[in-house]
C-alpha cells in the first residue's frame, strides 16, 4: 500500500514540470573532473533486523570522479564504454549494502554521531525476550546480537543504461567476486527527472531479484547462530521493490537544498527470517548541500 501511494505522488509530481536537461546540474559531470560536495541535515534509514540500529543520515558526502571511461561515484568504481547520449554500459564494483544492517560501524555511522535511542524513534524493531540485568531465559526469538558475524561482500557487475532526455532505464546484474555469499542480484530501475521552477526532481522505481544464496547468507539462521533449532531458517530468494524521490533546489552556485525519500519492500525470502522484524526499509533526508 505504501509503495503505490508513493508511486501516485511521483506520477502527479512528474506531470507538473519541464524536462530536466543535463546541463550544469549535480547529476551530470564532465569527463576528467571531480564533483565534491557535502550535505548536512537530518534523516535516517530504518533497519529491518531485530535489534538492528537505524542508520542515521546527518552528513551526506557527494564524491564523484569521471575520467574518459573510468569513474568513481559515491562508493562505486567502474569502467564505462559505448558512451553515447542514448545508451551507456559499464562494469562496476562496490560494497554490498546487506552487511550494513548488521553493524553499527557502517561507513554511514563513521562520519555521523547519533544517539541510537534517539534514532530508534524512526524505526526500532521489536526486541522480544530481553530484560535488563537478568540472566537470559531460553529464547524463542533471535536478534543480530546473538548470531555469528556476517562478512562484508562486494558487488561486481554489468549495467546497461538507456538514456532519454528526461528518463533513464537501467538493467544490472552483479555477483560476489569475493565469494562471501556466492549469490547474485539483478536489478531493473527506471528514473524520471523533471524540473519545476527552481526545483529539480528525480523519481525512481526499481525491482531487484536477490538470489537464494545471497539472502540465505545474511538472513538464514543455522547451528552457527543458535543451538535452538526452532529458529533455524533456510532463506529463499527475494524480490524487492523500491520507489524514491530526490529533490534539489539550487540556492546559489554552491549551496542547494537537498532531500530524498526512499521506500523498499524486502520480499518474503528475507522477511520470513526470524532475524527480520520489518518488511520494508525506509529512508529520508532533508538538508543543505554545498558543492565545491
Amino acid at each position, binding site marked *: 500500500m505504501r509503495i503505490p501511494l508513493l508511486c501516485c505522488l511521483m506520477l502527479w509530481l512528474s506531470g507538473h514540470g519541464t524536462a530536466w536537461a*543535463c*546541463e*550544469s546540474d*549535480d*547529476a*551530470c*559531470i*564532465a*569527463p576528467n573532473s571531480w*564533483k565534491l*560536495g557535502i*550535505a548536512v541535515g537530518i534523516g535516517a*534509514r530504518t533497519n529491518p533486523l531485530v535489534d538492528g540500529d537505524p*542508520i542515521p*543520515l546527518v552528513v*551526506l*558526502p*557527494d*564524491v*564523484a570522479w*569521471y575520467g574518459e571511461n573510468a*569513474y568513481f*561515484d*559515491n*562508493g*562505486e568504481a*567502474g569502467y*564505462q564504454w*559505448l*558512451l*553515447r*547520449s542514448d545508451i*551507456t554500459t*559499464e562494469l*562496476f564494483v562496490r560494497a554490498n549494502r546487506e552487511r550494513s544492517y548488521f553493524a553499527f560501524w*557502517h*561507513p*554511514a555511522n563513521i562520519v555521523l554521531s547519533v544517539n541510537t535511542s534517539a534514532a530508534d524513534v524512526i524505526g526500532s524493531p521489536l526486541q522480544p525476550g530481553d530484560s535488563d540485568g537478568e540472566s537470559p531465559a531460553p529464547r524463542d526469538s533471535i536478534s543480530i546480537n546473538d548470531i555469528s558475524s556476517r562478512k562484508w561482500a562486494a558487488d561486481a557487475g554489468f*549495467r546497461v*543504461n538507456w*538514456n532519454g532526455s528526461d528518463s*533513464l532505464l537501467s538493467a544490472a546484474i552483479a555477483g560476489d567476486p569475493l565469494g562471501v555469499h556466492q549469490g547474485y542480484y539483478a536489478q531493473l530501475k527506471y528514473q524520471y527527472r523533471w524540473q519545476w521552477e527552481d526545483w529539480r526532481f*528525480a523519481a525512481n522505481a526499481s525491482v531487484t531479484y536477490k538470489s537464494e544464496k545471497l539472502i540465505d547468507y545474511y538472513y538464514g539462521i543455522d547451528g552457527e547462530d543458535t543451538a535452538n533449532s526452532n529458529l533455524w531458517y533456510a532463506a529463499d530468494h527475494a524480490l524487492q521493490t523500491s520507489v524514491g524521490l*530526490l529533490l*534539489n533546489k539550487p540556492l546559489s552556485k554552491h549551496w542547494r537544498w*537537498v532531500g*530524498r525519500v526512499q521506500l523498499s519492500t524486502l520480499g518474503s525470502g528475507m522477511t520470513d527470517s526470524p532475524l527480520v522484524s520489518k518488511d520494508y526499509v525506509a529512508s529520508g*533526508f532533508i538538508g543543505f*548541500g554545498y558543492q565545491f
Partner: protein
Amino acid sequence: MPAEAEDDAFSATPSECIAAEQGDECVMSVTLHYPPLPNDRYCLTLNSEPLGCWPHSAMPGTVKVTLKEESELSLVRESNTYQASVILTLRYRSASMLRRRVKNPWSLF
C-alpha cells in the same frame, strides 16, 4: 626544435575535430604539409587503415577523415623506409561533454 625542422615535418591542419556529442563520428578535411619526399610512392593511413597511395609528386593537399576516437594519420613510404605521423584529436562541444552520472548525487548511503 629548429624552425627549419618544423617546416620540414609532416603536419596536418587542423589536428582537432569537434563533434556534437560523445559517441558521434567527426568528419573533417585536413590540409597536409609534406617534407621533401624522395622519388617513390607514398601512402596515407589512418590508424593503419589505408586512405590511398600516390607518387611523391601527386600527394593530395587535403584528405577527408572520419574520426571515432583520437587517431594517428601516417605518411608511409611504400618501400617502408620512411614513416611520419600526426595525431588527430577528437573533442566535443562543451554542453554535450556533460554526461549523466551513474549514481545520483548524495547517494553514498
